[in-house]
């Protein structure tokens, strides 16, 4: 009968509706961890027990990293010195970054709005911009001497341009329609900047800040390689001269973690401040 054939058809259709992928529930982080785990296992297998290996096995690196942070294993000059060195590095990163930000963002806002300012300043900036930051290194050493100020100056120089350019672009690319809308809704001319241009440009300004901070960590290592006694970059360079490859790799990992954490913090701040922007999510 009709009902029988109908139910038969229904049972036949049922299996096709089950999505096989749903059967195995694998959390997303499992996939994220797979590649690092494979690489570390391969590294361990390739290096363990080989006396003349240039690269120490990850197990040695882990011990060194622990000792660098907390001491108690190797008891050498680097044992337990991570916190002090990290503080020195973090201070330099943020000092250079803030100096650059405090100049770049206001200057970018002015350049974005004023044709006269652009004509006066932009050609000079465009000439300076293609000079690689590392090429500034000798000059900053001559000007600021060997030591932390040269590192801070280098970070400030390198992070200045991405923050400046993103601010200028953010301001210049504000939808003219939004300004017209604000005008026709009765916004006083003097208030257009604060009420429309600044919020509209803020996602781009924020992108500049993120790029700048990422670059700051790159430049930290370059800056600290030039005879600065403390800091993670300095430790890496000293460890290389002492053939302490385990310490070199430990320092690299720590710099990576700090860079990652600082980017996360900026992202969190950005998400809170720019919650309205779908592209910031």
């Amino acid at each position, binding site marked *: 009968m009709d009902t029988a054939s109908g139910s038969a058809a229904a049972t036949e259709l049922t299996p096709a509706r089950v999505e096989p992928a749903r059967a195995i529930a694998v959390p997303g982080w499992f996939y994220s961890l797979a590649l690092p785990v494979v690489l570390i296992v391969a590294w361990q297998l390739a290096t363990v027990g080989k006396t003349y290996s240039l690269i120490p096995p990850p197990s040695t690196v882990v011990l060194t990293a622990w000792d660098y942070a907390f001491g108690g294993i190797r008891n050498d000059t680097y044992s337990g010195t991570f916190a002090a060195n990290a503080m020195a590095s973090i201070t330099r990163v943020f000092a250079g970054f803030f100096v650059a930000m405090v100049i770049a963002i206001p200057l970018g806002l002015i350049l974005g709005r004023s044709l006269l300012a652009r004509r006066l300043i932009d050609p000079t900036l465009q000439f300076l911009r293609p000079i690689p930051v590392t090429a500034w290194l000798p000059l900053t050493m001559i000007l600021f001497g060997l030591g932390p100020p040269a590192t801070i100056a280098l970070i400030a120089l390198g992070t200045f341009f991405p923050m400046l350019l993103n601010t200028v672009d953010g301001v210049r690319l504000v939808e003219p329609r939004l300004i017209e809308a604000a005008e026709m*809704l009765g916004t006083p001319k003097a208030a257009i900047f604060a009420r429309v241009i600044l919020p509209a440009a803020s996602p781009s300004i924020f992108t500049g800040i993120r790029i700048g901070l990422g670059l700051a960590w790159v430049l930290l290592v370059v800056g600290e390689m030039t005879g600065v006694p403390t800091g993670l970059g300095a430790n890496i360079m000293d460890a290389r001269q002492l053939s302490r490859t385990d310490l070199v790799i430990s320092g690299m990992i720590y710099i990576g973690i700090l860079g990652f954490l600082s980017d996360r913090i900026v992202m969190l701040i950005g998400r809170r401040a720019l919650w309205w922007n779908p592209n910031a999510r």
Partner: protein
Amino acid sequence: MLAEPAAAVTTTRLDKTYRSQRRDGTFSETHALSNINLTVAQGEFICIIGASGCGKSTLLRIVAGFETLSTGELYVMGKAPAGPGPDRGMVFQDYALFPWLSVAQNIAYGPRQAGLPKAEVAELTERYLDMVGLRKFRDRFPHELSGGMKQRVAIARVLANDPAVILMDEPFGALDAITRNGLQESLLQIWEKARKTILFITHSVDEAVYLADRVVVLSPHPGRLKLEVPVTLARPRDIASVEFNQLKRTLLDAIAPDIAVEAAALA
């Protein structure tokens, strides 16, 4: 005798010429609008149609104060406006909502600029949220809304300023047919309730005949006023009626030569 109330919008011999400098330093001129004489009564719903390049957007932007006229006169409620202002609300085709403000904050924006007390701003916001049917979406942000909802916010935002004239530049042009019909109905309801003067640009003859008290046809190069057709059909209008289609025929005939010229130019 009482003085005759001022027309909402009057243009007298309005002319607009764009001048742009060529590379060799000489100037080229584009005559966008020529001798536009238009009087819009208070509370009147005017639709402006015409082939592309007829200057209909330019005319609206001049009334809005975004652009200046070259010669002639423009009066809004008897006064010559200087620049854009909240007495002439503009509804753009691409909405131009402030993406960093919620629906309610977008609507409250104008009253806030006017420096109204907080309680009054809140009251206006609620009233116009209700009028456009977006109470439930008050805390959403523009990127979370559909095109039709965004345009409702844009209309409410303008209404909250209690403008003398609402200028609408192809406001429903980017919307699908069903959403557009819904918004047309809403706009007519709002217009009947608020009795605002509306200048509405469209490229749809159907839309013009459906909405307007009077349809104004512009023809291009330079933009001139070609024809004015009063629409006296009772609302709601039956788009399938003979009278409706006769008016459409009249308007289509008026536009046809301009569209033919455009087609020939493109061919």
